[in-house]
C-alpha cells in the first residue's frame, strides 16, 4: 500500500516537474515541450485520425508477424523439446543465435523485400521467433518426468502423452514464452519502421523527429507505450488465470 502511494506520487511529480521546467524554459524547448502542450497536440492528432491511420498499419504488421513468429516458434519449440537427440543438437545453436542482434539482418531484408510492410513483418517475426522457440523448449523440459513415466505405465500412447501430459504441463512457461515473443515482435515492428518505412507509428515518430515536432514526438511515444503496457497487462492476466487453474 505504501509502495502504491509512492508510485502515484512519483508519476505525478514527474509530470509536475516536466510541466514546470518546460514552462519556465529551464530546458531548451527543442528537447522537452510542456506536458500540457503534448496533451493538446496528442488530442489534435487523435481527432484528426492521423494516429489511428499509423497505429492501424503498425498493429497489422504486428499481428501478422506475431502469428508467424508464434506458429513457427511453438512448432519448433515443441518439436525440439520432445525429441531429445534433435534438442541436444539444435538447442545450443539456437541459444547462440539468440545472442546475435537480429537487427543486423534488417539491411538484407530491406534489400530483398523493400520499404513496405513485408520487410517489417519478416524482420519482426525473426525477432519474435527466438524467445518463443527457446522458452517453449524450456517449458517442455520443465514437465515432470515422473508424470510422463506414469502416463506411459498406464498405457498412454506417444500422441496422448504429448497432448495430455506435455502440453498442459508446459503451458505456463509456453504462455510466458508467448508474452516475451510478443514484446520482441513489437520491438521489431517499431524498430523496422523507425529505420526505414512509409507508414506506421515508427514512421510517425521518426517524421516528428526530423521535423522537430516535439509535442507530436512525445505524444506518439506515449501512445506506443500505452499499447505495449496494455498488451503486457492482458498477457500477464492470462498467465495468472492459467496459473490459478492448475
Amino acid at each position, binding site marked *: 500500500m505504501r509502495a502504491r502511494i509512492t508510485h502515484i506520487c512519483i508519476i505525478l511529480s514527474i509530470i509536475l516537474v516536466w510541466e514546470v521546467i518546460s514552462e519556465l524554459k529551464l530546458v531548451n524547448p527543442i528537447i522537452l515541450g510542456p506536458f500540457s502542450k503534448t496533451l493538446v497536440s496528442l488530442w489534435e492528432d487523435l481527432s484528426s485520425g492521423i494516429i489511428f491511420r499509423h497505429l492501424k498499419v503498425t498493429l497489422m504488421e504486428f499481428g501478422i508477424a506475431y502469428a508467424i513468429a508464434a506458429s513457427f516458434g511453438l512448432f519448433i519449440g515443441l518439436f525440439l523439446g520432445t525429441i531429445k537427440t534433435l534438442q541436444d543438437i539444435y538447442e545450443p545453436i539456437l541459444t547462440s543465435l539468440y545472442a546475435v542482434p537480429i537487427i543486423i539482418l534488417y539491411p*538484407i531484408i530491406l534489400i530483398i523485400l523493400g520499404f513496405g510492410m513485408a520487410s517489417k513483418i519478416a524482420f519482426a517475426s525473426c525477432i519474435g521467433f527466438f524467445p518463443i522457440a527457446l522458452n517453449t523448449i524450456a517449458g517442455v523440459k520443465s514437465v515432470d518426468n515422473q508424470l510422463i513415466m506414469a502416463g506411459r505405465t498406464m498405457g498412454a500412447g506417444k500422441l496422448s502423452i504429448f497432448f495430455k501430459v506435455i502440453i498442459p504441463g508446459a503451458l505456463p512457461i509456453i504462455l510466458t514464452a508467448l508474452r516475451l515473443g510478443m514484446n520482441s515482435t513489437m520491438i521489431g515492428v517499431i524498430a523496422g519502421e523507425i529505420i526505414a518505412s512509409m507508414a506506421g507509428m515508427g514512421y510517425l515518430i521518426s517524421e516528428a523527429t526530423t521535423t522537430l515536432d516535439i509535442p507530436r514526438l512525445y505524444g506518439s511515444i506515449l501512445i506506443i507505450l500505452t499499447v505495449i503496457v496494455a498488451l503486457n497487462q492482458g498477457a500477464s492476466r492470462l498467465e495468472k488465470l492459467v496459473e490459478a487453474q492448475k
Partner: protein
Amino acid sequence: MNGSKRKYQIRLYQILSVIGFICLWDGLDRFGQIPDIFISSPYQALVGLIQLIQSGKLMSHLGMSLVEIALAYALALSFGVGFGLIIGATKYLRDVFDPFLMTLHAMPKIAVFPLFIVWFGIDIELKVFFGAFHGFFIIIIMTIAGVKNVRKEYVEAALTMGLAPRKIYYRVLFPAAIPSIFTGLRIGMIGTVLGVLLAELVVSRAGVGFLMNELTYEFKTGELYGLTIVIALISILINEILRFMGERLDAGR
C-alpha cells in the same frame, strides 16, 4: 565413455548442420534465379568481406563500435549492479522500483530513441548512452532478484558475528547474488550490443551499423552479407565467453 562419444556425435551433427546451411544458401543462389543484388552466394560474401578488410573500412568502423560497446557496457554494469544492490536490499525500495523497472524493461526502447537524438546529438554519446540504456534494465533486475533471494540467515549470521552493517553489501549480499548478477550481465551484454548497433543503424556517422547502411544504399550486397556474418560471429563469441566465465564461476563455488 559412452557419454563423451555421444558428445562428439552431437558436435559432428552441429557442424554438419552449419555446413548444410551454407550449401542450402549456395544452392538457393545458384539455382534460384535471384538477381545478385538481392542474395549473394557464400563465395561472394567471402570476397566482399576480404574487400572490406583490405580497404581498412572494417577495422576502423568495427574498432569504433567495439569502443562504444565497451563504454556503454561499463556504464550499464556499474549503474545496474550498484543501484541493484541498494534497491534489492530494502523491501520498500524493491516494491517502489520493481514495477517501473519491469515496465521499462519490457518496453521497446527504440520507441524513445528520437528523444536520445534530441538530447545527445548523433555522435558517440548517443550510441554509448543508448547502448547502456538497453543493457541497464536486465542487469539491475537480475541484481535485485539475486539480492532478494539471498537467504536472510546469511545476513543475520554476519551481523551477529559483528560485521558492520555497511559492509553487508560487498561482504555478503554481493557474493551471494553473483550467479544471478552474472546471468544479468550476460543478457545485458546482448542488450548493449543491440542498443549500440540499433543507434548506428538509425542515425550515425561511424561504426559497423553506419557501414551496413552505406553498403545497403550502394547495393554492395556481397560486402553487406560478409559484414553481417562477421558481426553475428563476434556477438556469438562475446556471449560464449561470458557464458563460459559464468559456468567457471558456478563450478568454483
